[in-house]
Structure formats: structure tokens, C-alpha cells
């Protein structure tokens, strides 16, 4: 599995906020993607958009609710089309399956089209250890592979890199003259990778959707690398999380309308490719073998908790990242694993374990922008609250994830806030202590013992000289009665 550094969220996000280049890149991407997304919704009209969202959600709800049934249908139909389906409980098993397929077919060169699951599995390094050359072919993925980094966004993996950084990377890694002309850099990638496409023995792709009724794998791409990966090599391996299934070919229509618009604001992508088994004997070309690897890797944990199940409806469009005030400031790497942003803050704890990632559900202002942007109406804030609640005082699988100090403070805070007498006393004492050191009614970031993680990053307004109930009693209630007497 890909290295998990989710425990470092706090320091990593603090460092990210200070990175001026990253801030600039995030601003450009966020406003760009989200702006075109909104235009695309206006174009079809918000009313129609809502109908599509409801329809897509219903499909996901039904399929995930009967996932075992649709997995069986899918397996039957992939097999009938001449493909083979393999099931992996975890990353290690999935990597072993792909390694075995490569070994059995004498594979030395692999070209890959973008797959978040393969990032999750850390597959490239496993294959490389076996002596296989692995080439990412999506331009963004190729860049981060050269830089030995993880993707920082679900649809734009190299979003955090400036053109200058990519140019330097190409010069260092490929030995080409430095040029920060974007057309030129894309041309270099084309030339380098074109030969790999023709040489590759095996193509690996992800899957945006798996159609149970026909046993088809669907990928949605723009560059053409997905078409080459699934057409040129003699073996094609598709990797998919088990939640990617949809029942019927007809269900595809609504998702083809929602996904590109939500992801990049495109009305449709340049390509949609649907693979059903290997090449038939009479076909001109196509792989001799088609393998589909279906991965659990912690997804059944999300499935088992009814409160978190809807996180598996996600179609990985990235719209929630583009509208999230937290993601827009800290970027994808701070989240410490493969899936960043609001949906990542639910999926990551689910897949790597809450104990590893307990800061992530707190990386949200709960503003709800993610829920509004989600094309399948996933209620992300509700699930973040559910995770926070469970971490604080949750059931056994969350045991040891909460902080005793935090829980003690929260309990103290709750008893003060629920007693008018204690609140009043607290206000007076607080004001007397803080007023002398505050500036303009606000105490700037300070390190108050026990609560410094809170106070060092926030302004603390000092308690008002008079409480609201005092103001109400002395003035407002009087005005109210005057007015009613008019």
C-alpha cells in the first residue's frame, strides 16, 4: 500500500499554508475548475442538474445496497466476454495478483493510464521491484512519477507544480534542454511515451465505471493515453475499487453527463472507452488477455457502517476539493495519503484506519460547500461529524483515537455553557484576566497551556463587558415593550 503519512496533517498543512507557489497553484485550479463547473450547470439549468443528481444517487444507492449481487453479475459477464476477474481483500493481495499476471505473461514494460486505486495500492514500486519498467502516461501522472510524488488532486495529479518546476524536472530526469513552454513539454512527453506505448507488453488502467449487465469497464479520458493503454499491449489489466459497479448500460448516460461537468466543467471528455473482454479473434487489434482486479482494501469497513456507506457513492470527480476552503489552502499532499479533500477525509480514515488519520475529519469548516457541489449528493459534513463524534466518545473500533485532555475540556466547556450562572461567572473572570493583554477586543494567537493547539492559530475575542441577557434585560426588552405599546 502507498505510504500513509496522515498523522502529519497538522505540521504538513502549516507548512503548506506558507508555500506561496502552492497557494497560487491552488487558487488558479480551484477557481478555474469550479468556475467552469458552475457555467456547465447553468447551461443545462440547475433544475435539470438536480434531476441528474437525484437519478445518479438513486443508482448508486441501489447498487451499493446490493453490491454482492451486482459483483456476481459483473463477474459472470466479464467471464462470458472472455475476461478474467480477480478479487483482492487488500493492497498486498492486489499487488500480488498484478505481479503474477505480469510474471505469467513475461511482461517487461507496462504503460499505465491514470488509476487512483493503483496509487492507493502503491503498485508501481511493487512491479519495479520485480524488474518491470512502469510508465505512467497521463501527463500529470507522468510528472509526479518522475518527481516520485503522490497525486495532489483527484483529477489533476500535478496541480501543485508550476510550469517552471515541471521544466526543471524534465531537464533533470529526461536530459532535455530546459523549456518552460507548456506545448513543448507536452510534446516531449508525447515523444518519450509514444515509443513506450508501442513497446509495452501490458497496459494497466483504472475504471470509472463497471457495467454489471455487460461486464464492461469504462474509462473517461482526455489525452488518448487511456485508448493506447487499452489497445496496444497484448495484456490489459483493469483495476477498480469494488464500489465502481453500476447495473445497466443505460445508467451510464447520467454519469457521463455528471462526471466531466463536475470534474473540469467539460461537457464531455475527449474520450470514453468501454472495454468488454479481450479482443475477439476476428478483431484487428486489442489485447489478447483482459483481467479485472476488484479491490476491497478497507472499503467493506465503510460499507458496514450505515452512517459512512454513502462515501462509496463517490465518483472521484474532485468537485468537493475545488470548493473546499481547507483544501484550497493546504493542497492535497497535506492530507498524507492518496485521497485528499473533503471526501478523502472520510475515505482515508475508512481505508487506512481511523487511528492513523484522526485529524482529517477535523480538517473541515463544515460549511457544506462540498455537499452542494457533489454530483451524487453525498452528505460529507454529516459523515465528518459522525467521525468526529466517534473519535471523541465512540464505539470500540475508535477506541484510543480520542484525546483525554480534549474530552475533559469539552466536558468542562459543555457544563459551563449549559449553566447561565457558570457562564456569567466565567465571562467576568475571563474578561478581567484577558482585557489587559488584548488588543482591540481580541487576543491574538497565543500559547495558552492545554489549549494551545486551538489558541495559537486563532484570534480569541475577549468576553463582552455585559452579557446578552443583561443587555436584553436592561435595554432591548424595554424597547420591545415600548414598540408594542405604540
Amino acid at each position, binding site marked *: 500500500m502507498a505510504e500513509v503519512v496522515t498523522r502529519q496533517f497538522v505540521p504538513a498543512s502549516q507548512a503548506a499554508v506558507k508555500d506561496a507557489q502552492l497557494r497560487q497553484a491552488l487558487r488558479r485550479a480551484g477557481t478555474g475548475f469550479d468556475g467552469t463547473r458552475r457555467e456547465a450547470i447553468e447551461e443545462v439549468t440547475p433544475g435539470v442538474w438536480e434531476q441528474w443528481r437525484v437519478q445518479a444517487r438513486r443508482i448508486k444507492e441501489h447498487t451499493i445496497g446490493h453490491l454482492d449481487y451486482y459483483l456476481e453479475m459483473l463477474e459472470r459477464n466479464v467471464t462470458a466476454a472472455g475476461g478474467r476477474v480477480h478479487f483482492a481483500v487488500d493492497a498486498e493481495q492486489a499487488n500480488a495478483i498484478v505481479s503474477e499476471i505480469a510474471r505469467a505473461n513475461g511482461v517487461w514494460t507496462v504503460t499505465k493510464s491514470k488509476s487512483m486505486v493503483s496509487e492507493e495500492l502503491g503498485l508501481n514500486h511493487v512491479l519495479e521491484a520485480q524488474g518491470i519498467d512502469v510508465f505512467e502516461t497521463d501527463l500529470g501522472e507522468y510528472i509526479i512519477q518522475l518527481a516520485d510524488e503522490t497525486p495532489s488532486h483527484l483529477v489533476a495529479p500535478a496541480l501543485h507544480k508550476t510550469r517552471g518546476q515541471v521544466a526543471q524536472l524534465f531537464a533533470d530526469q529526461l536530459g532535455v534542454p530546459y523549456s518552460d513552454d507548456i506545448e513543448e513539454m507536452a510534446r516531449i512527453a508525447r515523444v518519450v511515451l509514444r515509443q513506450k506505448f508501442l513497446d509495452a507488453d501490458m497496459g494497466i488502467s483504472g475504471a470509472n465505471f463497471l457495467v454489471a*449487465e455487460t461486464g464492461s469497464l469504462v474509462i473517461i479520458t482526455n*489525452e488518448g493515453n487511456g485508448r493506447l493503454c487499452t489497445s496496444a499491449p497484448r495484456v490489459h489489466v483493469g483495476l477498480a475499487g469494488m464500489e465502481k459497479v453500476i447495473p445497466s448500460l443505460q445508467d451510464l448516460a447520467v454519469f457521463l453527463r455528471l462526471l466531466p461537468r463536475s470534474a473540469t466543467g467539460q461537457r*464531455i471528455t475527449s474520450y470514453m472507452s468501454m472495454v468488454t473482454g479481450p479482443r475477439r479473434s476476428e478483431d*484487428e487489434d486489442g489485447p489478447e488477455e483482459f483481467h479485472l482486479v476488484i479491490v476491497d482494501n478497507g472499503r467493506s469497513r465503510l460499507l458496514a457502517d450505515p452512517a459512512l456507506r454513502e462515501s462509496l457513492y463517490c465518483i472521484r470527480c474532485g468537485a468537493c476539493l475545488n470548493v473546499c476552503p481547507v483544501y484550497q489552502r493546504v493542497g492535497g499532499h497535506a492530507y498524507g495519503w492518496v485521497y485528499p479533500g473533503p471526501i478523502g477525509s472520510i475515505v482515508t480514515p475508512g481505508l487506512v484506519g481511523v487511528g492513523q488519520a484522526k485529524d482529517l475529519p477535523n480538517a473541515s469548516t463544515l460549511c457544506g460547500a462540498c455537499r452542494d457541489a457533489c454530483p451524487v449528493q453525498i452528505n460529507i459534513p454529516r459523515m465528518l461529524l459522525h467521525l468526529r463524534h466517534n473519535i471523541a466518545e465512540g464505539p470500540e473500533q475508535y477506541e484510543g483515537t480520542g484525546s483525554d485532555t480534549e474530552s475533559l475540556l469539552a466536558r468542562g466547556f459543555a457544563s459551563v455553557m449549559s449553566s447561565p450562572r457558570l457562564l456569567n461567572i466565567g465571562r467576568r473572570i475571563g474578561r478581567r484576566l484577558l482585557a489587559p493583554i488584548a488588543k482591540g477586543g481580541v487576543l491574538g494567537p497565543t500559547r495558552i497551556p492545554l489549549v494551545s493547539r486551538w489558541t495559537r492559530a486563532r484570534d480569541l475575542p475577549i468576553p463582552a463587558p455585559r452579557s446578552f441577557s443583561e443587555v436584553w434585560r436592561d435595554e432591548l426588552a424595554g424597547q420591545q415593550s415600548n414598540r408594542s405599546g405604540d
Partner: protein
Amino acid sequence: MGIPFNRVSGSQSGSLGIPSQQFRETVRAALGRESGAPAEPYEVLTQELPEIEAQAQAARDRIARERPELLDQLAATAGLRGWNVQRCEGAEEGLDYVAWLVRSLGATSVARSEQPVFDTAPVDAAVAGAGGLCWPAVYDGPASRTEVRQRLAESGMGITGADYAIAETGSVVVLPRRGLSRLVSVVPPVHVAIVRPSDVVGTLDDLFALRRLEYARDGGEMGSYLNFITGPSRTADIEQTIVVGVHGPREVHMVLLNKE
């Protein structure tokens, strides 16, 4: 080229990983449900052949009625999505356009598929008249695969027909098979698609309704590949700047015929 394309494959055994039964048990346990079909069946999947036929026929009838409007819509949408759309009265005018393209690009090698559309549109002669050589990208046995691929990689243009064209999205749909290579529309830097009025459908729903009918009729044969092509190959992976022609064609032309 590395290992030959048609090398005999190694693994012929069954599934790797855990047995599917066991995988599904885990899923079922997580869902807390009994095995078997959904209590309330999924409507689309309960359809029998006559129903699927009726649905497809309804789509066909509507398309036939609205054909002139759909052709206009296709031309407009495809233009917005990056196709160079050339509307032509018939095959002859379409071939004139192809010849003009070959001449202006200076293409010497032009690959094409073997599809019925070329019976009425003799493209080889048109390309030859423009100074190029048009050749069918089909394999005569495994030995020629390497050679065909190499020729494709050196071709300046690829010409195909369309199995469908979707007015809603501006897409050309190809179903690679005997005569129609997967690579001919993606490897050369310029792709020309010849679209006849009978290829045009209205919406994504029309397309999938028609495909479902073929699937149901053919006893569950979907064909190995289906591809939507909507505009040129493009990327915005560096600073959200759009560049066309990354791994696929930088230029795509839709020759849209008003008559078959």
C-alpha cells in the same frame, strides 16, 4: 518493438486472489443482507427482448423524424467540442474536402479503416489525386501486425467512418472490429471521421438503448471495444493550460454528409 504482439500468453489458470464467493460473503456481511437478487428488482434489468426492442424502435422513429434538426445540432455541438465540422451534400463533396486536407497537410501516408462508407466514398482515389497514398490499416495474419503499427505511427492522417454520432454531445462513436482497427483513429496526428445521416442519434440514452438491443439480440455479445471521440486529444495538466494533441490526434475533422 519489444516482444512480438502476438506472443502466446502464459497464464491460462483461473482467478487469482481470494475466491469470489468469499469476497461477496464479506460484502454481504458488511451490508447485513441475505444473498440473492434485490427484493425490489431493478427496473431496467427486468426488461425482456420485446421491451428493449420497443424502446430502441421508439428511439429510431424519433431520430428519423428529427433527422434534419439532429444534423444541425450535431454540427453545432461537435464544433464547440473541437471538431472541424465540414457539412457536405454527398460523398463526392466530402471527398473533395478530404483531398483538400491531404494537400494542405502534405500528408503522404494516409491510413483508413475498411468500412461500408468507403464503398460509396472511394477515398483511395481522392487521396491519390491529392498526392498521398491511402492504405487500409488491416492485418493479414499476425505477421503483419508489427508492420501495420509501424506504418500507422508514420501516417499523417487516419480516416474512419462512424458507427454512431451523438447530437447531444458532439461525439463520434466507433466500435472497433474486423476492418476497423482501434489504433487508426488515435495514432496518426489527424483523424477524419465520415459521418452519414443514418449514423446520427439524438442523445446518450438513444445510443445506449440501441447498443442494449444489439447486446440482447447477439446473445450477450457486446463487442470488445466501444469508443466515444469528442474533439482532439487534450490535456490541462500543467497550470491548467489546455494543450491539444498529447497522445491522440491534435486535429479532428468531421465530414458530415447530408445524404448517404
